């Protein structure tokens, strides 16, 4: 009786809207605490996890990805477009020629586990400065090659998004290297996002396109991310 009552409450739209106030409060509080652009902890290499757990997609389906992988990602391109002055299509070699950053950080999964790994990539800010965001741009959306199943109102493709605070954070990188080697397929080859002050589901793998936008309306389920469309918080700082 009590339990089914709780379940009914949990599914009630109005109750959900009230509970969602906590996400706004959390985001506002954390952003206030992080106003000095605080960095996530960087660990010594000795702390790197012996095995970095693979989660979500470990091998994207589909011929397109299989063909890219077979060609060593020579034909892979990262499209950067949307509300930008100069849309670009970047190869892996183009990205590797840009300034890079290497960081040993802890990956915190929403499920509760953590793993420490070393990531090398180009700061997202470098790429965004290259394309030049239009003043109307508020978010950066990451479109991926992997499919995690049919979503409510979405295609099932993985996607994620950040606002400009996290997009321009120095530790937010588009990583092509992990633990001193090329990014393995299971961890998102050829390119994945690292957003070190947020939970693992924000760190989109198998990137294909970076889109600057002013709203999530019309993008997949409209909540700004694959898991967000399933009810997870868009601000994943806790």
């Amino acid at each position, binding site marked *: 009786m009590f*339990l*089914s009552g*709780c*379940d009914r409450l*949990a*599914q009630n739209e109005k109750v*959900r809207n*009230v*509970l*969602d*106030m*906590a*996400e706004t*409060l*959390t985001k506002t509080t*954390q952003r206030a*605490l*992080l106003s000095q652009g*605080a*960095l*996530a*902890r960087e*660990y010594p290499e000795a*702390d790197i*996890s*012996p*095995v*970095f*757990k693979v989660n979500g997609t470990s091998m994207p389906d589909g011929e397109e990805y299989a063909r890219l992988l077979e060609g060593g990602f020579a034909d892979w391109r990262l499209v950067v477009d949307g509300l930008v002055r100069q849309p670009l299509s970047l190869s892996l070699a183009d990205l590797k020629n840009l300034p890079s950053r290497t960081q040993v950080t*802890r990956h*915190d*999964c*929403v*499920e*509760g*586990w*953590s*793993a*420490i790994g070393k990531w090398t990539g180009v700061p997202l800010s470098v790429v965004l400065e290259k394309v030049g965001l239009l003043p109307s741009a508020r978010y950066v959306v990451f479109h991926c090659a992997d499919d995690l199943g049919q979503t409510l109102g979405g295609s099932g493709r993985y996607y994620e998004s950040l606002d400009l605070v996290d997009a321009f954070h120095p530790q937010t990188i588009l990583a092509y290297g992990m633990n001193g080697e090329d990014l393995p397929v299971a961890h998102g080859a050829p390119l994945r996002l690292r957003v*070190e*002050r*947020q*939970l693992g589901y924000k760190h989109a793998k198998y990137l294909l396109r970076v889109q600057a936008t002013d709203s999530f309306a019309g993008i997949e389920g409209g909540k700004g991310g694959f*898991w967000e469309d*399933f*009810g*997870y*918080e868009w601000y994943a*700082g*806790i």
Partner: protein
Amino acid sequence: MEVSDRGRAQSESKLIYRHSSLVRVTHWINVLCLTVLLMSGLQIFNAHPRLYWGQYGADSDPAIVSLDAEETDGSVRGVTRIGSVAIPTTGFLGASKVEGELTPRGFPSWLTLPSYQDLATGRRWHFFFAWLFVFNGICYLIYSFLSGHVRRDLKPDRDQLTARHFIQEIADHARLRFARGDEARRYNALQKMAYLVVIFVLLPLMLATGLTMSPGIDAALPWLVDFFGGRQSARMIHFVTASLIVAFVAIHIAMVLVSGVWNNLRSMITGYYVIKPERPPI
């Protein structure tokens, strides 16, 4: 404030005003918060029912505590592992019935909110009630220090801190003999110390270890991670501290039941508590 007539003989019961309205209101809000936090917390725990020590910890790292499900010959068994000890806990921990079928599940559905597996909803409830718990706790603490509640009601009196007094209290508790007369106007020393530990150690520890699991807070307040020795250590302490609070609540409720359930409940609802007269000398 006291309603009873002090002049009356010691042989009669007296009604005293024991709990202020702020203590009563914050107490019941805390009951709601801790219930929801526990049940939604177990829902969150179920997403990865293993606990580690240190900075990192995932499937291939050694766990200190795990609620495992093992499949043999098509049947599921629940096994709770603590260190190298494995305890069969089928039906309760590791594997329990979901819609009549034995299913891998850390804690059973009757202990989680929502009852079905839904991490996203569990988190939303957990964080909403965590905020409510924090605001409620701040109100309680400000009031308790300013009004003298801590000093007057919770701080053990000098005479309560002697070994002799403790031994007497332990013996009284064991025989379920509770204070009457003037002695019942104050909390006993064991009770005071239990309340102090919960209010000033366990509940703040829950909040601090909970925040240490947040990557955002860890960037803002990195000393928290150092203090607890890593995010996974903080998760372990969060779980152990929650268990200690559950143990406190169990003892608290048991004491409420055996020391006069209606009198206790009335005092936490209306504020008024009946002091029974001293036992006549035998």
